[in-house]
Structure formats: C-alpha cells, structure tokens
C-alpha cells in the first residue's frame, strides 16, 4: 500500500505553515504525527489525496506541556505518550492522561499527538471527551500571525470537520486551572479494551462545594453522535445537589437520552445508548468519590 505522490514542505514557523496552507488551500494538509493523515492517504483514491503535505516537525516550540496561571497548555506536536506519562497532566487532568494512555497502541502513542487527535475530529477521539469536561479551548493561528481562541465545544462540527478556517492551524490546546475539590474520570468501551477505536467513551468531572453538593458537573460523550458532545441536561440533573447514588443514576439515564448513536462495525446504536448510561454512572461515581463526595 504505497503512499500517493505529494510535495513535502517543512516550514520553520507556524506563521509560515499558515501561509503555505492558505496558498495551497484544499490541496494541502497539515501533518503532526501523521498517524491519521498518512493512513488516510494510503487508503484514499489518488484523486482525493492532498498534493502538498505541510510537516510541522521543523517548527520549534510545539512539543511542550506548559503550566501557566495554574492551567495547562499542550503544544501541537506533543505526543500522546508524553501526555500519558506527564506528572503535570496526571495531577491536573487525570482523565486526559488516562485517555491518552488508552489511545491505540504504544507505537501510535509514540507518533500521534493530542492536537492531531482533536484535528482529525473523529467522534470517537479518545482525548476529546476529557478535554471537553475540563473546559479546554484551542488556540488557532492564521496567516499573518493573528490568533484566536475557540472553545473545544465549538471546534467539532462533524466527523472530520472542525472550525478551522482557511490557512488556520491549531498551535495548542489549553485547559483552565481545575476547581478545588474536583474529581474526573475517563471510561471507554471497545471490543478489545485497548488498541481498537472506542465504541463508546465517557468523561466526567465533578467539583464539590463545601457542603458536599456538586457545584459543577461536566459529562462528555464520545462515539455516540457526529461530534464528541457535552450531555448538558444530564449535568443539570446533578448540579447544585449532592451526588447521591440515586441522582447519579438519573443523570446517567439523562446522558443516554442525549446520545444520538448510530450502528456501525464497532457497535449497534442501541448497545451504545445503553452503555452510555452504564459508563456515565460508573464515571460519575468515580469522579464524585475522587472529589471527596459520596455516590
């Protein structure tokens, strides 16, 4: 399975990469780890493959995990393996570290990046749901060097489709500082437990008040809709109330109602919906207990 022919360019700055992308438009694709892009290029018919590949590897400063103002920034070239193994990520965003650890195989985690996982915009992307519950946003750079920040919630438009405009590239993904007394968790289900693409994934975050009620609840679902999405009505079931077993069960049932799953090779839609309820309950129980609450 050879790769189709293409021109490879390796700009030395993000701004130069944006200029190249703007110049070549739909005929060009940006490459970080290449695990999704090169695979798709091998499978696509010749006519559909990009003519220009813009490799980001030569751009300095993109392979970073930074803490600023208590929040976390992950650069466009930071490997899934680096995120999985980072003590900062494990401390501040344990559900993200867990998701990165369960993405694909050892080799793919040594090649693929978190930002690439987001830009590929698979509804099943492992790192998408934890970043949604942490309230992450992506920093986009466009030609001329202008920057804008997009909440991750607004970044996914459909399978393989993002809010990236012409010539725009994601420089990093940012997570705000965590709330106090927070617990978070990532759950995934697939036929082989690892390696294969998730049939369902669920992330949750629970932040507790002093009185033990849930000040903030975030629930995000993957692989059960055209985009990774927040289950907002399920979040409202718990917010402002103590996370008792009964309320957690109600919230999980609400999350299942918000899923819009399809049937495909990885699972039937009906099974997905039922598993959203199971995984959401499991995940909320764990997040609440990590936050120091009941459930």
């Amino acid at each position, binding site marked *: 399975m050879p790769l189709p022919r293409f021109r490879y360019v390796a700009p030395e700055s993000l701004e130069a990469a944006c200029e190249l992308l703007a110049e070549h438009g739909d005929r060009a694709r940006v490459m970080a780890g*290449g695990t999704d892009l090169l695979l798709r290029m091998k499978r696509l018919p010749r006519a559909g493959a990009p003519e220009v590949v813009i490799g980001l590897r030569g751009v300095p400063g993109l392979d970073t995990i930074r803490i600023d103002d208590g929040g976390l920034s992950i650069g466009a070239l930071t490997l899934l393996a680096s995120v999985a193994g980072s003590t900062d990520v494990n401390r501040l965003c344990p559900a993200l570290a867990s998701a990165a650890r369960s993405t694909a195989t050892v*080799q793919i985690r040594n*090649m693929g990046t978190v930002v690439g996982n987001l830009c590929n915009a698979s509804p099943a992307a492992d790192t998408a749901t934890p970043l949604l519950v942490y309230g992450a946003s992506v920093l986009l750079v466009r030609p001329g060097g202008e920057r804008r920040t997009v909440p991750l919630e607004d970044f996914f438009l459909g399978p393989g489709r993002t809010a990236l405009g012409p010539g725009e590239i994601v420089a990093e993904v940012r997570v705000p500082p965590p709330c106090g007394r927070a617990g978070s968790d990532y759950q995934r289900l697939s036929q082989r437990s690892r390696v294969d693409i998730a049939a369902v994934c669920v992330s949750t975050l629970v932040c507790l008040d002093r009185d033990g009620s849930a000040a903030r609840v975030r629930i995000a679902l993957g692989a059960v809709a055209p985009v990774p999405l927040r289950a907002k009505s399920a979040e409202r079931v718990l917010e402002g109330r103590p996370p008792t077993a009964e309320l957690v069960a109600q919230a999980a049932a609400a999350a299942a109602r918000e899923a819009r799953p399809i049937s495909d090779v990885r699972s039937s839609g009906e099974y997905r919906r039922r598993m959203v309820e199971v995984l959401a309950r499991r995940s909320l129980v764990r997040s609440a207990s990590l936050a120091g609450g009941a459930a």
Partner: protein
Amino acid sequence: MAKVTIDLRVNGEPHEVAVHPWRTLAQALREDLGLTGTKIGCETGDCGACTVLIDGRSVTSCLTLAVEAAGREITTIEGVAPSGTDLDALQEAFVRLGAVQCGYCTSGMILSARYLLSHNPAPTELEIRQALSGNLCRCTGYQKIVEAIAEAAKANG
C-alpha cells in the same frame, strides 16, 4: 517530482539517501539500505512488524516518512545484537524459549520489548502484554514471547 537527499542515521551509522517525499521509512530501510530485518506487514500501523526505534521511541516505520526520520537516531533489528557473533539478552531469550515461530513478527516484537525494558526494566506480565498491544503474531505464539521478555528482563536485572 524531485528526490530529496537526506541523512539517515541507522544503528549508529550515517547514510546519505535520495528519496521521494512519499517514501516511508520502512521502504527506505529495506529497499535503499538493504536492511530487510524490518518487515512490512499491514502497512497501516496496526501489526507492528515494521517497528523500529527513533530517538529511543518505538514507532511503526510504515507510517513514518523517511524525510521526517532524517537526522534522528534510528535503531533496527540489525542494530540490536552487540556484535556479529553475539546476541543481545532479548534475542537470546527469544531463541532459548522458542519465541520465534515463523519469525515475521520477531523484529518488531524485539524492538517493542527493547523499548519497554528501556523505561521499565522489571515489567509485570500485564505490562509486557500491554507493551506488545501494537505487535501482532499471526502464529499466535504470544505466550512464549511474553515469557522470553520476562526472562530477558531478569537476565538484565
């Protein structure tokens, strides 16, 4: 389209190679450098037969562009043995415990195992199995492979 001249540093030796941008590292190793110990299986990054180390990390060379491996430290199965007559502890253990069946997955298995032991010198059985999640053996001889890696870890310890 023109070829690009790149420096590939393989098993400590520098090589100047002219490649097209769409040439994978697996193709360059096998066809340009004659290092056929790296096997090509699925070509989609699933089977791990083409696993090599780049700067110490295991990667599938079928999904790596040769141009992007330029200037980095590449280790293939040919660079694992300390000399032309000796084997390394992992290779010894694979031979002794019968972990090589048809042999097609072996190069990748050994490089994945080497990567594992480089950051976890005393892995549990579960950790060994998880470390091999990206390496398929279609003879399904996993048990002996896992035992061989555990044995090599002990020998190193």
